[in-house]
């Protein structure tokens, strides 16, 4: 395999992508051969101040998105009064997980979009699917330049009369569904949420209970969890963002002795 016994094959292709290195599409001239470029920048060093799971549930008349109020610094529970769920406008709510600094960066651009909407004063306002698509394109572009925004986001809202719920991940892959979760929620909450949502459309009360249960499980089982969470509920009546606390049940501990 190592030697071709003197026989040398012509290259399979010329001037095309070389696996392992950065490929410049025809009109681009991006130099990206070394780990550090001429300005001293390296590839994304990874997330630093992070938010953990977000959970989202669609019900018959609206959507609920919830996430705990913690931003962690590695293992350290650093900032514990932080909202990771936001009202964007009357039609859209957004939950973030991942690097909080990257989120603050993209939020400025989202705020500008909302402001332009307001200034245009033409009664046309951003809808959830618009934001969802925009975020997909932005995150995909950053991923393709090897400098991702380290974020996993859940967009929810009212697309006209219909509730909308979607997920965009760090690499710009997006999808919509009746139930969404990021981080640990994918493993812990999503199976539970899917079981209930597949039985039929949920009403607001069941959706609320599912969220509560998911947040409880996430607090028990996610090391980076926190018992206080905020939740955004959107429907035809508007958006309410509220604070909640997980009802913890540790009675189980009393019955365990030894190992």
């Amino acid at each position, binding site marked *: 395999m190592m030697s071709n016994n003197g026989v040398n094959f012509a290259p399979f292709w010329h001037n095309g992508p070389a696996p392992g290195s950065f490929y410049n599409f025809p009109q681009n001239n991006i130099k990206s051969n070394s780990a550090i470029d001429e300005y001293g920048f*390296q590839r994304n060093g990874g997330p*630093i*101040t992070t938010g953990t799971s977000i959970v989202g549930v669609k019900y018959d008349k609206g959507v609920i998105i919830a996430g705990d109020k913690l*931003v962690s610094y590695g293992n350290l529970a650093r*900032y514990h009064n932080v909202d990771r769920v936001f009202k964007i406008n009357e039609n859209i709510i957004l939950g973030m997980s991942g690097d*909080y*600094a990257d989120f*603050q960066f993209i939020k400025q651009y989202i705020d500008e979009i909302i402001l332009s909407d307001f200034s245009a004063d033409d009664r046309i306002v951003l809808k959830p699917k618009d934001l969802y698509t925009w975020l997909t394109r932005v995150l995909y572009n950053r991923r393709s330049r090897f400098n991702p925004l380290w974020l996993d986001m859940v967009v929810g809202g009212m697309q006209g009369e219909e509730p909308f719920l979607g997920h965009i991940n760090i690499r710009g892959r997006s999808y919509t569904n009746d139930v969404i979760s990021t981080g640990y929620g994918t493993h812990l909450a999503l199976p539970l949420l899917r079981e209930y949502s597949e039985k039929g459309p949920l009403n607001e009360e069941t959706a609320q209970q599912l969220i509560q249960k998911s947040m409880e499980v996430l607090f028990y089982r996610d090391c980076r969890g926190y018992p206080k969470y905020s939740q955004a509920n959107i429907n035809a009546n508007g958006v309410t963002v509220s604070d909640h606390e997980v009802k913890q049940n540790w009675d189980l501990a009393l019955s365990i002795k030894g190992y």
Partner: protein
Amino acid sequence: MDAHLGCDFLDHPVSTGTTIMAVEFNGGVIIGADSRTSTGSYVANRVTDKLTRITDKIYCCRSGSAADTQAIADIVSYSTYFFENQNNRDALVSEVAAEFRKFCYNYRDTITAGIIVAGYDDVNGGQVYSVPLGGMLIRQSCTIGGSGSSFIYGFVRENYKEQMEKEECVEFVKKAVFHAMFHDGSSGGVCRVGIITKDGIERRVFFAPSVDEKPAMTPASVTVR
């Protein structure tokens, strides 16, 4: 490492392995820091001043790389001076904090800087802003930073109260910093404290108590500006 035969400071960048904190109180903010700058395990400067002036009433506490934080503080300080000249008004604490965040976020892969911005302005009174490693920006009423801060999360959680009186708050900051200095090898020296109110800054320096004793009540020096 052994090529340098015990001089590990030749391999390490200069860092303000540090303890810093800032607390809002009734009338302004109190900022505190230790005074040790280390290169590996050598103390490069034992009397550092980590409470850095941006404007007369807005200061920052620096932790992380000494070079990076000094460079950024110099830039933000100039940028703020220019802003105040062009806008004919004093900069707000939030504006200075946002400027710090701009640099710390955009250069996040190149620098190591954990900064606390604290000061007084006449719109929102005393404010404290935290700009940690990734470059996020968050306002808090009490925040700690630097390597020594790990040791005092418990102490601060137990003893912090909102809107303390000035002297009570100075005691709290001083004790917290001394506790951190005791445990953290990268923190040490003296405890520098700054009290920022509408009248400007009053600086104090406290010497560390003997390891058996409780911290001294009277400061070694008081400067009012």
